[in-house]
């Protein structure tokens, strides 16, 4: 009976994997076809391996109206990294303050952070743009990342993680003479490493996928992220070179996948190594 259940589970999983993989495979195949063939709706499930050059072509030369893909990848990577690292740094410190220090209006501070969950970038896009303008950060790299850094979600998550740390561990560190910053560096961060890794992955992908804010704040092509680039390549009045769009889309997938895969091993290890 167990064998048949396994068989069923595997079938479902394989079907699910195929379902998710199919569009990516289609995009990969489309990248190797003639642009005209796609326009005629002649999608093929078999890639033309002699046309793999389109990947190299967009990577180095870009497409109509956009810089080379490697450049846009770099911008996206920088932005996603800045957002992920910035969010973690800020929320780590706020959660640390909220959990381990007794200061006036501690609860108020926490709930104020919490309420910002209801104010994502999309809601506050005009005031945020105005503030960025006052700070002269429109159309600059920091302007891409900074408004996206504040994060209630991550603060909330760290608060839960820190609250689960036994009081005795905190007290042992106090008796050992560790001050607050030492405690943060030597004990809190290593102990929460698994959560940190998981959060980094989620935030990196979140940053990578940002579309609306970069579209608003950055106008110069040198600040085009890969997501913006793909959209720009889909011409409205000119004919679209679909093979290049597809190639770019496939390339855009690679960095987040690499981050997920590399960090996955890390945080699975962190989870299994955690104390019982």
């Amino acid at each position, binding site marked *: 009976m167990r064998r048949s259940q396994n068989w069923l589970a595997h079938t479902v999983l394989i079907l699910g994997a195929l379902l998710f993989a199919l569009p990516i495979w289609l995009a990969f195949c489309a990248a190797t076809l003639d642009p005209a063939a796609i326009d005629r709706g002649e999608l093929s499930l078999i890639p033309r391996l002699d046309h793999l050059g389109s990947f190299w072509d967009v990577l180095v030369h870009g497409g109509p109206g956009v810089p080379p893909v490697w450049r846009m990848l770099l911008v996206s990577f920088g932005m996603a990294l800045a957002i992920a690292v910035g969010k973690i740094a800020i929320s780590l410190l706020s959660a640390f303050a909220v959990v381990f220090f007794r200061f006036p209006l501690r609860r108020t501070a926490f709930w104020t952070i919490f309420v910002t969950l209801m104010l994502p970038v999309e809601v506050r896009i005009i005031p945020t743009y105005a503030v960025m303008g006052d700070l002269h950060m429109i159309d600059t790299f920091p302007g891409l990342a900074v408004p996206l850094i504040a994060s209630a979600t991550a603060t909330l998550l760290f608060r839960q993680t820190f609250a689960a740390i036994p009081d*005795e561990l905190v007290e042992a560190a106090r008796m050992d003479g560790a001050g607050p910053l030492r405690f943060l560096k*030597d004990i809190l961060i290593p102990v929460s490493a698994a959560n940190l890794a998981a959060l980094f992955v989620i935030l990196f992908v979140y940053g990578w996928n940002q579309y609306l804010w970069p579209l608003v704040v950055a106008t110069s092509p040198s600040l085009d992220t890969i997501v913006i680039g793909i959209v720009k390549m889909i011409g409205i009045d000119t004919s679209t070179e679909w093979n290049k769009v597809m190639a770019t889309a496939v390339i855009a997938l690679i960095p987040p996948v690499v981050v997920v895969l590399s960090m996955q091993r890390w945080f699975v290890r962190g989870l299994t190594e955690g104390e019982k």
Partner: protein
Amino acid sequence: MATLVIEKLRKSFGPIEVLHGIDLSLQSGEMLVIVGASGCGKSTLLRLVAGLEEPTSGRIVLDGRDITTLDPSARDIAMVFQNYALYPHMSVFDNMAYGLRIRGLPKPEIQRRVHEAAALLGLEALLARKPRQLSGGQRQRVAMGRAIVREPKLFLFDEPLSNLDAKLRVSMRAEIRRLQRRLGVTSLYVTHDQVEAMTLGDRLLVLHLGLPVQLATPMEVFDRPANTYVAGFIGTPAMNLLDATLTAGGTAARLEGGMLLPFADGRREGADGRKLTVGIRPEHVRLEPGGVPLAIDLVEPLGSETVLLGRMPDETMLSVKVHGVWTGGERTEIAIPPASLHVFDAQSGLRLDPLR
């Protein structure tokens, strides 16, 4: 080696006072065990000494220095926690060395101290392991090692054995005693386990509802409990506490059933009919043909001895501890030896000593 003096120490959490003035003085190298039921304030007392809580009033003086308001790390005190509180991501070596590193000790000195403590505790082979790879007993040893390497003036133990299984607890208990004697470090040890309290302490402090009830050597506490609470708390099975009244002249107690128990050690003060509580330990009740009949309700064999739970003719419950296996059936006859009697005032619960 250091003395510890605690003066009029009080602690309130909000409007609730949990410690109502503790006075205590430890000699150099002494091990004092603080014992009491949960909620008696024993852990709070320890945490005040550690500096993890601030007292509402009172003073703590360690080795002549007032440490009442000092930061925990500045007090020269090491603490062993109930749940070990080891840093999960650090090896055994790093767990022990962490406090020394923070204090900026030179590397060779840290090496020396950690290896010495590890040798003392039999942890040398485990120094590279992480806490999760250790058994409960080993973790407890590491927690002790972490305290030992600090070479503090005072050790604090917060129920360190309560997470271990019974067998391990016995051996660790002996080990703690041996180590403490050998290192000669003044120690405060908190427990709710009376066996630990009896075997470990040079002296015991029995706490009840935030008040010190008795401070004495373990045998003194056992032989002359200061009140009915201590009498019932120390000793297994618990002491029989029976309602009684003083006879005229104060020379004997009369149980509710009419049985007369003369005092072997002298008369007690008070008028005829003063309400008393008399205590007799189950192991001191004698089986005596021709004595008071006892109907046995329950027989609890413990191996080398047996506890009998019975009723006297007036339905008063009495437990009796006898050696070996009980073969006597459902009825027996007992006597209460006057020399083993404890006399307390029924109202205050305080011990009544004979007049001189």
